[in-house]
């Protein structure tokens, strides 16, 4: 295979909401931009499933403090209010950008229709204990993702679809580009860039029933391997599905209709009934369910039945459909070191679900938050990268290192045999899927799962082989998922308390000594967790009784 080399100022990896904004903004700053995606820009990752977005606008009577309080309380004080304020503060500008891109919104008169937080329309048992859910959403009309793609093209950025980036090139401690291959079997590529924006989305395990299909934590893992820090891995967003026909009906058509708020309960399953016929207490006010159903199962009260989307029919729930689905939605990812979304590795920027701003904290309290977070961080990362690329003095490329990176990308294709990516993925899913590993967590079970993941990491991943370019992609995705599994298990073991969507059977309460973010960094080849303390000013008032600081009852805390 011949190797092609592309030169650009800014390389954006991942073409969803964040990546498109990064590309457009970097281009607007006058830089050359290349936007690559392992799928099809605008139809990749979570983006096509977003039915709406949240727009904070004082002129619409929105009160910033009330919005921040909603996130702070539901997020159990693990949000970073500085980022939360930035996301809300710039939402309206990004909204105007989207309109400029040609994205149409549901409007009445010339005003976009603003819908209240869907949970306010549901009977939530503990609602009164929580601050009011004030965030609102606006709806775009079907076909909007195509407008994003057009905006990127209009900006003059170059789009490279169906190209899998396998690693970041690092020279003298700086990111100088990336290497990868083309899934249609054409030549591998090296892309030299002054700066790189990682906007490759979140990390799942190819679960059925929630569209995290292509999201295999590629971005987190590449950045981590390049020396960046990762945070928020102990949290997850549980999603359920229908065991008789997992993932059916496909939800994309419903989302794409642009009216996802229209369907009942969505993933929250607000009216779950357990095997005893009792109503299952719904914990918290996060949009996505917590571990209510998992706990019922754990206590021997499965099956749990609930009205499932999109038709609202009552079915037995099955779970975790997410199989450790996403990282805490828009909460975890690559740690940004400043408000330009720069990371610990000079030249590398992060945006969207790849960026660990922790702006929602330990649980996702919003609706349409992730898309706006992606737009805002995408724009900032694009501008940050553009500025860095302008100033960056380009060192002479290290051809040998580039060739080695390309060889590593193609290694599974070169192997005559070894372990198949599908088998390895199944073994990994079998290790993580049981609710008693990543949902109802406990020290020795987490360690047991980690031991299997370490075996896959050390023995199987180095022997992954691919019969063709498609399996080559699967092999690299599998390697990323194995690394992501280690991140989730280590972070979960490290946080010896329960908070938000992180529940430890052996530490079943919040412990305010844990008002800290768990970060993971590579130390001498060992994945090492450490606690990054949260500034005192963001702590809850310790004088408040526990029940008021934490309105959500964790399993075992019911009065």
């Amino acid at each position, binding site marked *: 295979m011949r190797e092609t080399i592309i030169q650009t100022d800014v390389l954006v990896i991942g073409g969803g909401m964040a990546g498109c904004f990064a590309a457009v903004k970097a281009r607007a700053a006058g830089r050359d931009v290349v936007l690559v995606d392992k799928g099809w820009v605008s139809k990749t990752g979570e983006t096509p499933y977003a039915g709406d977005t949240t727009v904070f606008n004082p002129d619409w009577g929105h009160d910033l403090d009330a919005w921040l309080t909603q996130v702070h309380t539901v997020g159990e004080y693990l949000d970073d209010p500085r980022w939360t304020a930035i996301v809300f503060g710039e939402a309206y500008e990004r909204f105007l950008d989207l309109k400029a891109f040609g994205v149409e919104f549901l409007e009445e008169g010339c005003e976009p229709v603003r819908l209240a937080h869907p949970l306010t329309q549901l009977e939530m048992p503990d609602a009164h204990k929580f601050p009011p859910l004030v965030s609102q959403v606006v709806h775009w009309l079907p076909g909007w993702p195509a407008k994003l793609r057009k905006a990127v093209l209009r900006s003059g950025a170059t789009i490279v679809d169906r190209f899998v980036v396998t690693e970041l090139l690092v020279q003298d401690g700086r990111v100088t580009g990336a290497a990868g291959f083309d899934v249609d079997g054409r030549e591998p590529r090296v892309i030299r860039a002054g700066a790189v924006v990682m906007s490759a989305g979140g990390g799942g395990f190819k679960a*059925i*029933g929630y569209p995290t299909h292509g999201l295999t934590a590629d971005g987190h893992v590449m950045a981590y391997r390049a020396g960046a820090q990762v945070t928020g891995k102990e949290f997850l967003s549980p999603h359920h*599905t229908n*065991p*008789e*026909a*997992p993932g*059916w009906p496909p939800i994309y058509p419903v989302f794409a209709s642009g009216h996802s708020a229209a369907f009942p309960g969505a993933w929250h399953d607000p009216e779950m009934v357990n*095997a005893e016929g009792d109503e299952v207490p719904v914990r918290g006010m996060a949009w996505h369910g917590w571990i209510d159903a998992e706990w019922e*199962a754990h206590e021997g009260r*499965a*099956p*749990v039945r609930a009205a499932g989307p999109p038709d609202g029919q009552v079915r*037995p729930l*099955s*779970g*975790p*459909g997410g199989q450790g689905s996403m990282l805490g939605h828009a909460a975890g990812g690559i740690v940004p070191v400043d408000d330009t979304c720069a990371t610990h590795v000079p030249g590398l920027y992060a945006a969207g679900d790849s960026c660990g701003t922790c702006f929602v904290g330990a649980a996702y309290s919003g609706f349409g938050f992730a898309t706006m977070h992606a737009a805002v961080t995408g724009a900032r990362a694009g501008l940050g990268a553009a500025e860095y690329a302008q100033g960056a003095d380009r060192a002479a490329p290290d051809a040998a290192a580039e060739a080695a990176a390309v060889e590593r990308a193609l290694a599974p294709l070169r192997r005559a045999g070894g372990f198949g990516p599908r088998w390895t993925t199944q073994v990994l899913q*079998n290790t993580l*899927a*049981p*609710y008693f590993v990543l949902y109802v967590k406990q020290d020795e079970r987490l360690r047991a799962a980690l031991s299997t993941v370490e075996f896959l990491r050390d023995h199987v991943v180095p022997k992954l082989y691919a019969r063709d370019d498609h399996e080559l992609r699967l092999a690299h995705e599998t390697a990323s998922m194995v690394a992501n599994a280690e991140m989730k298990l280590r972070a979960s073991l490290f946080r010896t308390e329960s908070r938000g969507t992180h529940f430890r059977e052996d530490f079943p309460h919040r412990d305010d000594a844990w008002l800290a973010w768990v970060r993971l960094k590579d130390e001498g080849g060992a994945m090492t967790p450490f606690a990054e303390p949260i500034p005192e000013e963001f702590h809850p008032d310790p004088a408040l009784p526990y029940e008021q600081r934490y309105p959500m009852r964790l399993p075992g805390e019911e009065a």
Partner: protein
Amino acid sequence: MTGGREVSRVAIERIDAETCTGCGSCVDSCCMDVIRMDDEGGLAMIRYPEDCILCHFCALDCPVDAITVTPEKTGPLPLSWG
């Protein structure tokens, strides 16, 4: 619980109601209790397809070759607790 309708289309696939004489030999043949006689017609029916281990004895023992077994067997995802 199983992986869904998928399962019923694999392993033991069908018993042809036209051909089946209701002799019950397949019910005896099945070590996994997959096949039962139905209450109405007294014909053999595939009751628990997800348990089929493809031993093929039902088909081999059927005097009228009414049973189709395919080599495919897809597994349920380990999703459902109860």
